[in-house]
């Protein structure tokens, strides 16, 4: 049986008469990365804020390591950490001073050694004497990531951690996360708007919309739930013949050129369409099938078209 690091059960949160979270439940097993996705206003940030204790829920419970977070706040927070592109460290003091303060808040043994080890890994040793508010947003994010690892957490809640990183550093960050997961069995709850990142690192994805979980599966499983595909065919022959056939089959299509048609269809109908167009005396010269991605799911949810 999987060891659960985090369990959120029936979380409810209202702001005035507006229900932000409507009884959501999920868990984060040891060594797994769970992506929390959803359009703006879906309730992701409120969920994270409840999970780290800075916002109180109106209903439901949060457990870390099997312990009730409300009753064992200190011991739970000792073993977790958090990073967000929206929270920063103390701007007036240096990076080294900030990290030292957090190391001491977590009771890290030999804090100087731990800080050096982490800043070297993230290649930000040269930033240590600089004031935090003098750093670029990418540098701030890397310092935040160092802070999030300073207590050797068993789970990190990350709210868009790579939002302001250049592709190279973002890739290094993701590689580090993958390494930590592999070597130490680190668990993560991860929010991002970068679907490629989510597909790369997440074991499971939870889609929130209007305070409810509307989908929860592996990235692959989610894309399989969407059974539409986009088929692009290049052909030699009569455009009218192709058009007549597609109309007779009630397909949605558009011609990009007289020899190139784009068809939105069900995934299972793709072989039939290709074969029947060929049977009309039209030679298909190129085929491109675009399978649905997490981004398509995201767009369907955001536009209210998603049916699980």
């Amino acid at each position, binding site marked *: 049986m999987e060891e659960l690091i985090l369990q959120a059960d029936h979380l409810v949160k209202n*702001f005035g008469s507006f229900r932000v979270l409507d009884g959501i439940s999920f868990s984060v097993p040891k060594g797994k990365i769970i992506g929390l996705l959803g359009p703006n206003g879906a309730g992701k*940030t*409120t969920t994270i*804020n409840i999970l*780290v*204790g*800075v*916002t*109180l829920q109106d209903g439901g419970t949060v457990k870390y390591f099997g312990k009730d977070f409300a009753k064992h*706040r*200190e*011991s739970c*927070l*000792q073993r977790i*950490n*958090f990073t967000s592109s*929206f*929270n*920063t*460290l*103390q*701007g*007036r*003091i*240096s990076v080294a*001073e900030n990290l*030292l*303060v*957090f190391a*001491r*808040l*977590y*009771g890290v043994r030999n804090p100087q050694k731990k800080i050096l080890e982490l800043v070297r890994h993230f290649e930000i040793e040269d930033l240590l004497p600089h*004031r*935090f*508010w003098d750093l670029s947003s990418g540098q701030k994010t890397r310092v935040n990531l160092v*802070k999030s690892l300073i207590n050797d957490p068993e789970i990190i809640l990350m709210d868009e951690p790579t939002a302001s990183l250049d592709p190279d550093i973002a890739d290094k960050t993701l590689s580090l996360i993958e390494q930590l997961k592999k070597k130490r069995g680190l668990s993560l709850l991860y929010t991002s708007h970068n679907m490629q990142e989510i597909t790369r690192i997440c074991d499971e994805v939870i889609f929130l919309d209007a305070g409810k979980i509307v989908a929860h599966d592996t990235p692959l499983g989610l894309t399989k739930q969407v059974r539409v595909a986009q088929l692009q065919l290049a052909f030699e022959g009569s455009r009218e013949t192709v058009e007549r056939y597609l109309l007779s089959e009630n397909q949605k299509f558009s011609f990009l050129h007289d020899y190139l048609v784009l068809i939105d269809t069900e995934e299972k109908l793709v072989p039939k369409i290709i074969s029947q167009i060929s049977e009309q005396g039209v030679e298909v010269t190129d085929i491109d099938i675009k399978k649905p991605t997490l981004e398509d799911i995201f767009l369907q949810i955001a536009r209210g078209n998603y049916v699980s």
Partner: protein
Amino acid sequence: MSVKRIQAVILQELFITKRSLEVIMDLFFFSIMSVFVFGLVSSFLSKTMVAQSAYYLFLGMILWEVVRVTQYSISVGALWNVWSRNLSNMFITPLTLQEYLVAQMISGFVKAFVIFIIISVIAAAVFNFNVLSIGILNLALHFLNLTVFGWSIGIIILGFIFRFGTRIQALAWGLVFIFQPLTAAFFPLDILPSALQQFASLFPATHVFEAARANLTNPAVRWGEAGIALLENAAYLIFSLWFFGMMFRKSRESGQFAKMEG
């Protein structure tokens, strides 16, 4: 309660203080300028009027700085982290509310003590006014009572800031000055209208200032006033801690704490 976490918050306070010109101006510069201005005014008054009135004013000013600096340190100490969007980060560590408040109270006490020493030395060296003339035990009691009063006001203001955010941050600098006339810091209590005198006696600092003025001519400890001030302070401190806890909870319930930023 973890001593290490209390030390961590105090360490952060120390880092902020040494790197912030604003803190140095608000605390050290303001206090030093005040002692010079009040020292000169007192010198003038002592030559043209009753010397006693001048000493009341000067002693009141020196003691008032204890309340102001302690309160400022607690209220503005949190604002540095609010402005940096770092306050919620700190509470996502095992740091407890009690540890945070204890650290802020210690930091306020130390700042008030250092500034009190500096301005007392200036008063003695430049204006020939020795605060020790009221008696060391009196001075210690007055300092203690004024520090606790400053803590209470600071913690109540901090509660308002946690609950309502930076839109009421001006209270951190301004609200304490309401208590300057109400506690009769610079003049005898009987100068206040009689209705206000009753009201003023509800504040511990009023008893401290009255006792301190009396100590200028008689250094005997006025246990009655010191005792009332201590009792009132205990009540104020308990109320302020309860109030702050309630405001913090409401701030977390309303989502204000998570989105608090500068």
